[in-house]
């Protein structure tokens, strides 16, 4: 019997922000839920993130920013994904993101924003329900 392809996730930290506790906790929880997770480390440019997502053939990109620079970096990642012709990757975000900023982020294609206090179980569930299986 052929084994089902595991969901592949790129956990990414765009910008200069070094707060990586949250993304590491989420990445570990996703791994424990049976997903394959590639963590980029901090200080990634949107270009590096999109390149890594393509190279690693991921189903999901999880972005995390706590510095307030989401207003630049998140839309930039979405723009580059479209440019590179890979608009079908599920992109989600997290961090310190004011409620007021969420509609604009969703409008550019980010499927969900998870703020402080989110249970990792909710993130696992969201990914399982929303990822489009590849191949």
């Amino acid at each position, binding site marked *: 019997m052929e084994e089902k392809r595991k969901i592949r996730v790129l956990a990414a930290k765009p910008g*200069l*922000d070094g707060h990586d*506790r949250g993304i590491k906790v989420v990445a570990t929880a996703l791994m424990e839920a049976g997903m394959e997770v590639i963590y980029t480390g901090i200080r990634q440019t949107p270009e590096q993130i999109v390149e890594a997502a393509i190279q690693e053939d991921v189903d999901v990109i999880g972005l995390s920013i706590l*510095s307030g620079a989401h207003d630049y970096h998140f839309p930039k990642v979405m723009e580059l994904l479209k440019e590179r012709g890979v608009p079908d990757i599920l992109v989600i975000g997290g961090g310190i993101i004011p*409620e007021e900023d969420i509609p604009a982020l969703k409008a550019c294609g980010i499927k969900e924003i998870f703020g402080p*206090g989110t249970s990792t179980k909710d993130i696992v569930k969201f990914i399982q329900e929303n990822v489009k299986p590849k191949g």
Partner: protein
Amino acid sequence: MAHFDPSELRDAYNTWGKSVEKSLNKAPERKTEFVNTSGIPIKRLYTPLDLEEIPYLEEIGFPGNYPFTRGIQPTMYRGRFWTMRQYAGFGTAEESNKRYHYLLQQGQTGLSVAFDLPTQIGYDSDHEMAIGEVGKVGVAIDSLKDMEILFDGIPLGQVSTSMTINAPAAILLAMYMAVAEKQGVPLSELRGTIQNDILKEYTSRGTYIFPPEPSMRIVTDIFAYCSKNLPQWNTISISGYHIREAGSTAVQEVAFTLANGIAYVEAAIKAGLDVDEFGPRLSFFFNSHLDFFEEIAKFRAARRLWAKIMKERFGAKNPRSMMVRFHTQTAGCTLTAQQPQNNIIRVAFQALAAVLGGTQSLHTNSMDEALCLPSEEAVQIALRTQQLIAYETNVSDTVDPLGGSYYIESLTDEITKRAEEYIKKIDEMGGAVKAIEKGFIQREIQDSAYRYQKEIEEGQRVVVGVNKFKVAESIKSKILRVDPRVREVQIQKLKEIRKERNNAQVNWALDRLKNAAEGKENLMPFIFEAVKAYATLGEICDVLRSVFGEYQPAVTIGR
């Protein structure tokens, strides 16, 4: 000392214990096991029996006396309250200068500068990596020009200023010195702190630039320079705060902070400095988290342990070299986006723990910090929280009021021992730098962070408003927005600076710095010279990058 016979007390204690065990069938306790965040089991009751093994004079002693468990000054807050110091800074130097004037008017007694990420990582605002980040988490400083604006109207001879700056600490300190010179304030009168703690950047905070070895050289150059020229300046703030925020336990916070401290002391001694020359200017920075008594005991344990390390391991003779003088900030990671007003209460308890633990200065977080940068109103409540503790509760009227508590003393002792074990382990690996290179400290912190999150999700750890006592709410706050044009403003200023300054002089100063970096001379005088010629932060860091290279972290997640 005690009016009891130990064997009689032990018998009575056992009798009492048996009778309690019997009643547990009818009235069980809330949990079968009570354990704090550091994994220390908490007993039902502590008695004089718990202090039998803790010799008072050797381990506890008097405030102002070795090993300083009860505090570093003999009168503590009966003499003067702690310094109330709120970390602040955003946008341009002009905006932050206004906020500092506001905070000083509100009765704050010291300044604490937050720099934006490009500044902390050594990029000018016009650098490609700075896009989206300029002015966001702190003030943007590109050159001495910005620093002059930042401290405009603030007499540097009269305030003490703390600067959260690490990899480029030498450069920002040099800029501060240059502003002081312009104000006519002698360098010997400057009081303040640079964080300058690069080791915890590799494990917990992320604003490193250079690899460990040249970074340690910059740190020790600063120690040497300041011991001669800025005798009142705290040359480093060895920080457990960020280690804790990254997810460590209280014991790990003490252990990893002091292990880093040991690495700095060793590096300075290796560079030829005398331990009592730089030792008195080392300062510390701790977190104040939720577990009230554990935190108080943690501060006391850190003091005792560091005093012993400095005296016994490094042979310090000056008692000031053995003192842990520390700043505290309440734990940002405990603030919730849900029901944000609850954060006022959390911060109040954490601030009280810091005061009962004998802190020298304190930052209280604002209730809206899980959502955004703090608003002026939220900052005021946070500052008032400290003023309330100081002026209304009278907890400061006696020194170390919890000293002698069976529980606190027992917990202080236990934290000391467990932290010592960790330090021993790190010593066996070859010290903190090696333990970081191996990823040991990072992994320990990550594991604790994950365990903490699991405990919340499984309901063993209650977070009010998050996994219990929830309400339906829309999370809104009065948001302080950084003007998106900050980067353009800074780029314009950079253009003007580069046109107005004497570029030949800048290049000469940068060349001299490069030569010094390639050799062994102390870098501070060369950085000071470059800064005064209005070389930018990015230009100076680029010179150092070209000589030292950049740190490449090993990325690890999972087990």
